[in-house]
């Protein structure tokens, strides 16, 4: 068990180190170097040289690489020349909003997927099960920016029930502003999860123990919650780990549609402003969060299921 955890941790550490290196090279592969991105392509060579000297970009690449690591370990992610602040000061509050949105959407998606999946497993090939299957495929393919704008059009513009975007100032206001973004982000994830979970539940419904339970006269509700759910829910954690990139990509687009000032929204605005230090810092953070999310999913999975012992 412990050997496995140490192994898994070291694999993630290597991936993290490679990720940091990768982002470093992505920044330095820019034509003309980062100075041109900051000053614009019409900058005079003198201005570029001065900025390069100031930022230490005239030093040899290996040295810059070590400095990049040293800064990261100090928690310094770079300096935004557009907003005139350390990027790490920006991140905190935006990251919190993103985590609220993403976790709310993930929780909703899991809850819906379990309910729908159990129903689908129970209905199997009957017409109801087929209809559920159809909507799963459609909603899974639905781009979040399309869903989001449709919801805004219906519930904000036409019905005027909910705000079309932004954040609230009171707790109730926050909640009201979160309803549409959470629904938007949860929809494709719930569709993906429930498709998988429904398949799993269907397999379980075919097992002998379900027939035995029915023969014993247990009600369907008890069979679903006490028998099928327990056995079908196990692979869910791995699935959550796999869905993390989908969650982040969906999050970036959802936050942009609803002008919800989270990390994804900041990434978008910074990209439009060509604020490359902020963009590269957020790219790095999303990569780190993805690797950590997968790590947590794997560890949880191995703790819950003793059969998973990695190769």
């Amino acid at each position, binding site marked *: 068990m412990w050997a496995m955890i140490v192994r898994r941790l070291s694999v993630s550490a290597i991936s993290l180190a490679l990720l940091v290196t990768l982002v470093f090279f992505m920044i330095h592969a820019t034509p003309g170097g980062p100075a041109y991105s900051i000053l614009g392509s019409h900058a005079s060579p003198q201005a570029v040289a001065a900025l390069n000297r100031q930022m230490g970009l005239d030093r040899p690449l290996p040295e810059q690489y070590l400095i990049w690591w040293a800064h990261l370990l100090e928690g310094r992610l770079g300096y935004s020349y557009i907003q005139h602040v350390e990027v790490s000061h920006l991140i905190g509050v935006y990251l919190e909003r993103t985590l609220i949105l993403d976790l709310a959407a993930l929780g909703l998606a899991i809850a819906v997927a379990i309910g729908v999946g159990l129903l689908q497993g129970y209905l199997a090939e009957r017409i109801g099960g087929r209809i559920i299957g159809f909507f799963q495929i459609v909603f899974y*393919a639905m*781009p979040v920016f399309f869903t989001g704008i449709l919801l805004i059009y219906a519930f904000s513009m036409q019905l005027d029930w909910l705000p079309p975007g932004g954040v609230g100032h009171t707790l109730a206001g926050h909640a009201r502003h979160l309803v549409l973004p959470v629904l938007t982000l949860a929809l494709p994830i719930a569709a993906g999860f429930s498709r998988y979970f429904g398949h799993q539940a269907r397999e379980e419904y075919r097992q002998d123990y379900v027939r035995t339970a029915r023969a014993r006269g247990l009600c369907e509700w008890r069979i679903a919650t006490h028998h099928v759910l327990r056995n079908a829910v196990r692979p869910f954690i791995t699935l959550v780990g796999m869905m993390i990139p989908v969650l982040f990509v969906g999050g970036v687009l959802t936050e942009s549609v609803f002008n919800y000032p989270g990390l994804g929204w900041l990434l978008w605005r910074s990209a439009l402003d060509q604020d490359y230090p902020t963009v590269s810092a957020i790219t790095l953070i999303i990569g780190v969060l993805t690797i950590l999310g997968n790590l947590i999913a794997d560890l949880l999975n191995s703790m819950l299921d003793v059969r998973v012992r990695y190769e």
Partner: protein
Amino acid sequence: MSEAAPRRWGFLPLLRWGAFGGRWRAQPLVASGLAVFLVLVAFAWLGPHLYTISPYAIHPHRLFRPPSARYPFGTDDLGRSFLARMMYGGQPSLGVAIVGSVVAMLIGLGYGMASGLSPPWVDKVLMRLLDALLALPTLVLMIFFAAIVPLGPLSLIVLLGLVSWPGLARIVRNEVLAYKERDYVLAARQYGARTAYLARKHLLRAMFPIVVVNATFTVADLILTLAGLSFLGLGIQPPTPSWGGLLGNGSNLAITGSWWLILFPGLAILLAILSLNLVGQGLLNRLEGR
């Protein structure tokens, strides 16, 4: 020489449906998905020949007209025919994604085969590198590049190809590891076949079905990524229309109640992704049922 030439392209017959072991009729998912996608392709490339109104012609006295006989998809904020803009917009939306996924397919195939055929320690290093690459979602990477350099259609194709191959590379590598131990490959090795020969002659063939399936999903993925990027104003730049860009413009104008500027581009993107997912899923079912 005339006999050698066809053998060199011996994997080409696998392009036929037979590689997936079925008839078109037996595959409603694949057939219907493919039909919808071909309709969209025809809409984008044949449509402009039938409906010849320019997508750039501005009419200040015909702004925000709802769909009518003359303008079946209505007009936009500059009075341009929205049907024409949807047709022309389909070309970069679909074309860039299709060509980009071919680039991704070639890189992924090469990397996956190289990794699978390398000594175990090289394979391990290459796989760790893949983990790091896979931690960065395609859209996030594209936003990163869009922030640094302005992107045109050509650079979009190249970059989309460059960022979206790791998933395929991993699948190909796992397949190579599985096929490497098959009797016929081991037998060929016993006869003194070199690794390069094995890769070309036996493994490439074996990879073909799974690569086709994956390429289908990759095209769908890239359509979504490109649409998202253009929606954010970082992909295809106006006045050149693209479905994502049109949807982005439509959502900025949602306050005017012009539902057609949202519905049509959104549906086009949805249908393109949906149809390709159906094709991919149908092919995958077929492969796994084999």
